[in-house]
């Protein structure tokens, strides 16, 4: 059911929470001192949307995702900022029991390596009950029933899966179990970190479809972290592009892809090998993505590779500037840029297009 997800969000549910990330900074302790993996990231996630966070390896996507649960692992540390989640308040101020209860109950997390996110010694069913018990669920039977229906919803034999150990499930099945565990306690904010990275293409397509369908049916706010822009493009409503620990561009998916504004986004999209279109137009981005150690401490993180860099980029960090529902952090973007196609997203793009095929 790929088509209905593009229904305006407010119609779907009241339960979906919004998220507001403000000025989030996360540092990792390294031999070279504490280095920022996220620097001043601000982002608003509207309730009921699927937001994709894309970026190359090391751009800070996982760190951002973990920050939403206040779960940055040592040697990392959240150095500043806030993460307001509707119904929970600032997650970064939560601690102990409160935080634990929030995780799982309100915030569902599907792990980057969901392949290994299950206890190898216990059956899925037992782990489900552990989860229930940890969150004070009295009615184990009902929990199992919910889990079974979720699994069946995702096309699995619920009873058999609950009775299986991790190693008895295929990668795609495990990923679905991961999603089930994130949702079974009725969390309405779901964060998926690279949910399809280790899967083959056909399974990936299935998982993406499930993500979309479940999102829509349960009325969730979903954040999906991925390095594969195609994956993000396929499922998300909104897209946030990260580079070097910064959020460089954020806006509706089709607009960002169709009319990227930030030079990085533009270069990136140009650099994607694609099945359609003219291959001679494709260009790789020059230079190499930064790592924690090579990030410049001041100025624009992208300037080394930027075709439109200016003097100001050396010294000043560009602030994210909002244009309607899009925002871009680039000194050069205010100016009209020749050669880059800027197209306003047409309303048609957001209309549910029954034109897309159905494959149930």
């Amino acid at each position, binding site marked *: 059911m790929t088509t209905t997800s593009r229904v305006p969000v407010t119609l779907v549910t009241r339960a979906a929470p919004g998220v507001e990330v403000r000025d989030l900074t996360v540092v990792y302790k390294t031999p070279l001192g504490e280095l920022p993996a996220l620097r001043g990231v601000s982002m608003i996630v509207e309730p009921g949307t699927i937001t994709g966070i894309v970026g190359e390896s090391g751009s800070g996507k996982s760190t951002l995702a973990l920050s939403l649960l206040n779960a940055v692992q040592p040697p990392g540390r959240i150095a500043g900022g806030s993460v307001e989640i509707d119904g929970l308040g600032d997650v970064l101020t939560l601690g102990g029991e409160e935080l634990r209860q929030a995780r799982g109950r309100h915030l569902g997390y599907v792990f980057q390596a969901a392949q290994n996110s299950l206890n190898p010694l216990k059956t899925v069913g037992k782990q489900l009950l552990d989860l229930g018990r940890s969150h004070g669920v009295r009615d184990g039977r009902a929990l199992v029933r919910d889990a079974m229906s979720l699994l069946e919803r995702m096309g699995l034999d619920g009873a058999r899966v609950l009775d299986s150990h991790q190693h008895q499930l295929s990668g795609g099945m495990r990923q679905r179990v991961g999603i089930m565990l994130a949702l079974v306690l009725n969390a309405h904010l779901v964060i998926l970190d690279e949910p399809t990275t280790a899967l083959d293409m*056909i399974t990936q397509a299935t998982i993406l479809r499930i993500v979309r369908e479940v999102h829509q049916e349960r009325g969730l706010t979903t954040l999906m972290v991925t390095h594969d822009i195609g994956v993000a493009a396929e499922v998300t409503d909104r897209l946030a592009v990260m580079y070097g620990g910064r959020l460089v561009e954020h806006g509706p998916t089709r607009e960002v892809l169709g009319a990227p504004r930030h030079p990085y986004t533009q270069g990136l999209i140009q650099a*994607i090998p694609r099945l359609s279109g003219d291959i001679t137009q494709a260009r*790789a981005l020059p230079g190499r993505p930064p790592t924690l150690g090579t990030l410049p401490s001041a100025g624009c993180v992208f300037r080394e590779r930027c075709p439109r860099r200016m003097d100001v980029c050396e010294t000043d960090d560009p602030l994210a500037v909002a244009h309607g529902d899009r925002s871009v952090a680039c000194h050069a973007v205010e100016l009209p840029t020749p050669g880059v196609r800027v197209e306003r997203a047409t309303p048609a793009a957001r209309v549910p297009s029954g034109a897309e095929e159905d494959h149930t």
Partner: protein
Amino acid sequence: MISGTGITKTYRRKGDHTGPQTVPALRGVDFTVPKGGAVSFIGESGCGKTTLGRIVAGLETYDSGDIVIGGVPMTPLRPRKREPYFRRIQLIHQDPYSALNPNRTIQQTLRAPLTLRARQTGRSGSWVDERAAELLALVGIDPGYVLPRYPHQLSGGMRQRVVIARALTVDPEMLVADESVSMIDVSMRLSILALLKDLRERLGVSLLFITHDIATARYIGDGSELYVLYRGQVVEQGPTETVITGPMHPYTQALLSAIPVLHGLERPGADRVVPTEALDERRPDTGCLFARRCPFSTQRCYDEHPELAHCLDPAHEHACFHPHRRQVIPLELHAGTPVHRGPADGGCGAAGTATGDATGAGSAGRVRTTA
């Protein structure tokens, strides 16, 4: 020219006493790579791509079939005798991180094979260093910067270039690139692809390109052939663009259908094929290997084994009893690519191992098409 005929390989699982004892990784694969040509292999995970690549590079033995390198069949030769031939085929590893010894500088890494080469051809020691610099320049990196460094001090893209340069030290006739770009950051993938294409054009090196990302197969240069592997078998084969835009085999179609659409830049293709169930290796393999998952399968598919054959285009072969061209890949929003549709070549099934009476059932499968 390098070619393979009927290559099979079955892995025996030693030590592990549970589960099936043997894994058929390749079940009779034929291919031909012309001099300076390029061949891509695509397929799902576990379909045998890596195995094939390693066999072709001489790093793995094969059970039966033959590999012919420059007109010399390898099978009758003793392993020792094969070595010089296989040295003309160099594998470029998927993972540039593990493909370089972390304890050795790039200079040391390049010197070893070059010194050997110099000794074989009676060249001087200074040639070694010159050649190293030359090769690095050839793959597009600054020798002065790279040579004294350790691999971890280089980016993924640079590392992959070093790996390619190292493969070039022995002046290979063919490079086998196994997922050579999948571990490289998106922003730099194209530059490696461009390099491979460039090497083909400038040095006349053939290329065996292995990937699960079909899109990259388009970037390795003109005149490339695409082979679709499924469970150790080639199910479709033809010129890359032809196969991508007009796949005939339902498996190829399913594979292409699964590729995410870059909404905003692209719109979905007209057709879409989704397998009816997940792969289960434990099932017995009779008839068409894809039959169980195929939305179009008939009884014949379970009973007979389809062989590769062509229909209309002699260069485009496929192993299906019910071939049907479908347009499954997304189209660019702003350019109108022609859409291949309908049963343009219906009724032209692949040759069966046994002649059954069932005929192609056309597009009776579960396909939804949209205008």
